[in-house]
């Protein structure tokens, strides 16, 4: 009778034990990450709770005040807690960033994916992605000292530090993510699409703009969402380059105060547990919610594109 190989048993046993340890370590890391994120959110939201449920806090800071027009003057004899100027500020900076950065990033991605010779492509992509490694404080510093003066000389706007200045610097910070994700999306379009288009007599440009780009639109949309999420949450650049004046206006050349910069600027000095403190944490929860929705939307779009291309 053929006995099972004697050597195999202990080896098998040992290997299984190593497997199991590795498995536990990996599961623990995953759990630790998720727990960390959940705990952060629980903490931020818990500190924000008084504006919803505490009677004394709500006398000074409540939802009705947050979302009705007015000013942002939390340190005052008559504190004003309107989020409207902050929301408008964040929106303006983000819009300027997206409007300037997305066309550049998507066209650059299209060039890299469709037209660039192999050597250039292999150089271009890592270099653009390297841009993501520039610390935002450096971009902010550049915008504060150099860009603001250049823009003021061109536009003649009275305030040096304004939404446009901050938005342009923010644009720099989101180009890498928009470019990188868009390029991946464009490259994921099957070669058969291009071949069919070229075979029908379309030029390379027609193929790129009318076939590849539309086929990858969901992925590019996801790239824009991720860029938006980064721009909304980015703090250092707007803190340094936007002037931080809580003005409600639609002019791109007025100073703005964004939600993220407000938290960064005020949290260090606030009286712990005061209505102002809870309000800042509420802004934090709001920012968390906004970026969460944007990231989930981006994830869904990528999934959708993958399924559509696979089904095609």
């Amino acid at each position, binding site marked *: 009778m053929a006995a099972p190989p004697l050597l195999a048993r202990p080896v098998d046993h040992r290997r299984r034990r190593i497997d199991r340890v590795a498995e536990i370590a990996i599961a*623990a890391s995953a759990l630790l990450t998720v727990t960390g994120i959940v705990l952060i959110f629980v903490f931020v939201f818990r500190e924000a709770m008084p504006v919803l449920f505490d009677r004394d806090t709500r006398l000074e800071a409540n939802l009705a005040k947050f979302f009705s027009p007015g000013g942002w*003057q939390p340190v005052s004899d008559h504190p004003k807690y309107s989020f409207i100027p902050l929301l408008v500020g964040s929106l303006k900076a983000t819009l300027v960033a997206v409007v300037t950065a997305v066309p550049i990033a998507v066209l650059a991605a299209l060039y890299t994916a469709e037209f660039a010779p192999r050597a250039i492509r292999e150089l271009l992509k890592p270099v653009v992605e390297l841009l993501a490694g520039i610390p935002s404080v450096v971009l902010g510093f550049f915008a504060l000292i150099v860009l603001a003066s250049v823009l003021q000389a061109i536009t003649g706007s009275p305030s040096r*530090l304004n939404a446009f200045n901050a938005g342009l610097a923010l644009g720099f910070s989101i180009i890498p993510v928009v470019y990188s994700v868009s390029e991946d999306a464009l490259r994921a379009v099957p070669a058969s699409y291009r071949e069919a288009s070229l075979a029908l007599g379309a030029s390379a440009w027609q193929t790129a703009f009318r076939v590849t780009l539309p086929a990858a639109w969901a992925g590019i949309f996801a790239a824009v969402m991720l860029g938006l999420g980064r721009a909304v949450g980015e703090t250092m650049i707007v803190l340094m380059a936007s002037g*931080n*004046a809580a003005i409600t206006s639609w002019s791109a050349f007025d100073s703005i105060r964004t939600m993220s910069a407000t938290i960064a*600027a005020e*949290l*260090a*000095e606030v009286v712990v547990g005061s209505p102002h403190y809870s309000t800042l944490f509420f802004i934090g929860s709001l920012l968390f919610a906004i970026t969460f929705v944007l990231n989930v939307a981006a994830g869904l779009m990528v999934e959708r594109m993958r399924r559509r291309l696979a089904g095609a």
Partner: protein
Amino acid sequence: MHARSPRALFPLLALVLLLPVVAGCGGRDRAKSVTVKGSDTMVILGQKWADAYMKAHPGAVVAVTGGGSGTGIAQLINGTIDIAQSSRSMKDEEKAQAEKAGGAVEEHAVAKDGVTVYVHESNPLATITLDQLRGVYTGTITNWKELGGADKPIVVYSRENSSGTYVFFKEHVLGGADFVEHAQTLPGTAAVVNAVTKDPSGIGYGGIAYGAGIRHLGIVGPAGTAIEPNEATIADGTYPLSRPLYWYVAAKAPPAARELVTWVLSPEGQAHVKEVGYFPIR
């Protein structure tokens, strides 16, 4: 795998439970070391004192960090530091919190600082009255020609509402009124100075210690004459915008902290104040 995963949680759980224990170890020797924290305006001053004190008293350890007046006071209330540096006096709610947390807090004015008003060096204006300054910062005066300058809008620079300088300016110049909403708030006096150097129609305020590269305005106070900010006018209090800088010490602070406070208030300690651009208290 599915059946096993709950057990995979145990090592993680153990780790999480252990973390606070590990973090709690390595406590410092509280008997000798004194921790000082607070106002960013006062960090340099505090470090100067710490250096000199440690040189004069071998074995003493004084650790000075910034973070802001409010941060320092909050940590003093929580009992995590011995001395809080602050460029504003403690708010009533903070005093109440301190008493609730089980300890009265002593206030010591340790130095004087002047809040100065800057304009671009090309600006023809030499003096400004307190009323005009209030008008500019509350938004009733928006053009330089109303102050006798050129016909161009005033770009107003201010500090973040987390700064002691902001609170001082609000109380002593604006009389508690709110800053105009188009006032651009910048992080740090150095940022305000930088903005004004680059902006011919700008006006800003901040500590005198940072005053290089721009022009200070003389302030016309209640006395009716313009007073330039300088050592003599700030020390004797004739300059309208001078302010005391404070140390807050817990009443139950260790002896090492008390000795440091006594030393800082002594002529020996006060001698170092001028070296960093502030003014001795007496």
